[in-house]
């Protein structure tokens, strides 16, 4: 029961600060779940993959996937409710006359500051997942042993198979309209071949 309440409140808190889409939740969720020893970074990355492969809002999917990982179906329900109840309440309050709030200069000024912050946080999410998944600056326990690792003495710098995949995926996303779900499925096959 404590776990379920904990999940509910973690995701309630997350949802109220997840401006700018689900990915901004990744570093916050990671901190909270690791502090409680509920999930590892690799587990979190795999759940992000599942959340992205599924249709629907990434943030909500992430809550369901992580909740399930921590405490099964009941955990998924708790995290899901935590994710949607507070924001739905905010929405309904705002919807009552929402354009006034949006066009308020004070709100506009706040968002002028929040948006670049969100950009920085999302970049940090990618950076810290890269470290924790052994793509860059790997520790001995996160090292990808089937990869091409470049180390300086014992200090790990970079793993090239992962970087190759990441670069190709970024180009696909930027230059084509291939949907992320298809890219993830294809990378699963590539992973089986390359590793």
């Amino acid at each position, binding site marked *: 029961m404590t776990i379920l309440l904990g999940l509910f409140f973690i995701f309630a808190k997350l*949802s109220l600060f997840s*401006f700018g889409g*689900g*990915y*901004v939740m990744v570093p*916050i969720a990671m901190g909270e779940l690791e502090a409680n020893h509920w999930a590892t970074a690799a587990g979190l*990355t*795999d759940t*992000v*993959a599942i959340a992205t492969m*599924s*249709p*629907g*809002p990434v943030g*909500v*999917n992430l809550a*369901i*996937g992580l909740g*399930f*990982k921590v405490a099964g179906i009941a955990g*998924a329900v708790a995290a899901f409710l935590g994710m*949607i109840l507070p924001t*739905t309440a*905010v*929405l*309904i309050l705002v919807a*009552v006359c*929402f*354009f*006034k709030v*949006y066009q308020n200069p*004070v709100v506009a000024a*706040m*968002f*002028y500051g*929040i948006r*670049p*912050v969100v*950009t*920085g*946080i*999302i*970049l*940090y999410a*990618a950076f810290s*997942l890269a470290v924790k998944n052994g*793509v860059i600056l790997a520790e001995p326990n996160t090292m990808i042993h089937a990869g091409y690792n470049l180390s300086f003495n014992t200090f790990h710098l970079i793993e090239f198979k992962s970087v190759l*995949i*990441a670069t190709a*995926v970024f180009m696909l*996303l*930027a230059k084509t309209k291939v*949907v992320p*779900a298809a890219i*993830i499925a294809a*990378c699963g096959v*590539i*992973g089986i071949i*390359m*590793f």
Partner: protein
Amino acid sequence: MVCVNSTDKIQPTNSLLLKIYITFFKLGSISFGGGYAMIPLIEHEVVVQNHWVKREEIIDILAVAGSLPGAIGLNASALVGYKIAGIRGALASIIGSLCPPVMIVLALSVLFEKFSSYKAVQDAFYGIRPAVLSLIVFAAYKMGSTSIKDGISLIIAIMAFGSMVIFDMHPILIIIVGAFAGLGLMPVKSAGSRKDGV
């Protein structure tokens, strides 16, 4: 300026609510790739197909959806539902757009848990993890291309990133600091260049 107060008085018929539910169930089933990917689909269904919302209204709705906390696609769905049929319309669109992802994420999570010890599944995830990294970098790139428009916002973004990497600052704290920075810096910026894109 559009205000949607008037919709409070509309008594939506059950068939309208059902239609909203089904429309957003459909949108929820095909909206791969997060909220931004859902936006053109929502626009097609509610503006082009059903004429529930005017095109200029949907642009404002999407801007508000992106400004509120929570999932953008879900916020947009709820606001559109509210616009069509008040609170009950908002609930119909929220429940409709969430049913498919809930079922699919749960199914995939159960499958993953069952098969995660297989070597092939583990190798597949070695390929998938860097792809997820790029998805996140790309999300930052898209966010940055609309939010970083001048030197000040670039500095704010770099400081946000740096304070997490170096000082391990909590993201929620940085968001709050960012809001105050915006409040403090916006007048400076408006005085410099009048155009203030929201």
